[in-house]
């Protein structure tokens, strides 16, 4: 009984995260300047990571944690590269 309820609750949480992903994607498309787009992309990475961890909870396997860890480790690289580019005009001087 508790498992069924938990299934619904986790499914609802996953749907909320999907809606959050769509909102970030809208900002990526609409953001008037480049800095808006890259910041929304960073938020997209974080929300995708949350979604993967939620999927790991739902299936009960520890496999998905590693995918989330890869996103956490390397997701900031694109933000830093575009920030450097906006400041200096090139990424590696």
């Amino acid at each position, binding site marked *: 009984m508790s498992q069924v309820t938990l299934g619904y609750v986790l*499914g609802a949480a996953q749907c909320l995260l999907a809606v959050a992903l769509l909102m970030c994607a809208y900002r990526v498309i609409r953001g008037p300047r480049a800095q808006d787009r890259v910041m929304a992309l960073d938020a997209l990475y974080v929300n995708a990571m949350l979604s993967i*961890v939620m999927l790991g909870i739902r299936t009960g396997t520890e496999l998905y944690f590693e995918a989330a860890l890869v996103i956490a480790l390397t997701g900031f690289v694109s933000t830093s590269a575009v*920030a450097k580019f906006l*400041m200096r005009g090139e990424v590696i001087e």
Partner: protein
Amino acid sequence: MTLAPDLPPVAALVVGVLALGGALVALLGATGLLKMRTFYDRVHPPTLSSSMGLAAVALASIVTFSVLGTRPVVHEVLLLFFIVLTLPVSMMLLARAALFRDRSEAYDASMAAEARAAAEQEAAALAAAQEEAAALARRDSETGGDDDADYSAG
């Protein structure tokens, strides 16, 4: 399609509350990102989802796998650790880059306006000098060819 881990009721309650709370906070952060009007306002809401949202969901994951495996499983703490280490740095760098960009564009615009104003002034001065020369030439033709009158008028 309703997958769920097989947990005892108390753990299921805790995991459900934490996961739903984390997802709600993430949604709040994304709504803020959508709704705010300037870039500097939009920097703050996503940090909600990456701090509180991530903490709640990671804690839910820790509880789930600890109860399922009957031993403490805490490697989700690594997620929090790396995000806390990298996200604020990249966000501050981006905010600084945006500030630099806005300031340099404002400077360029003010320089262009100044240059335009200076060009207009020069054109006005040139037009005034030309008119004076034309007036002098007219007076010259009216008085006739008397050299002394020209020198006294200047």
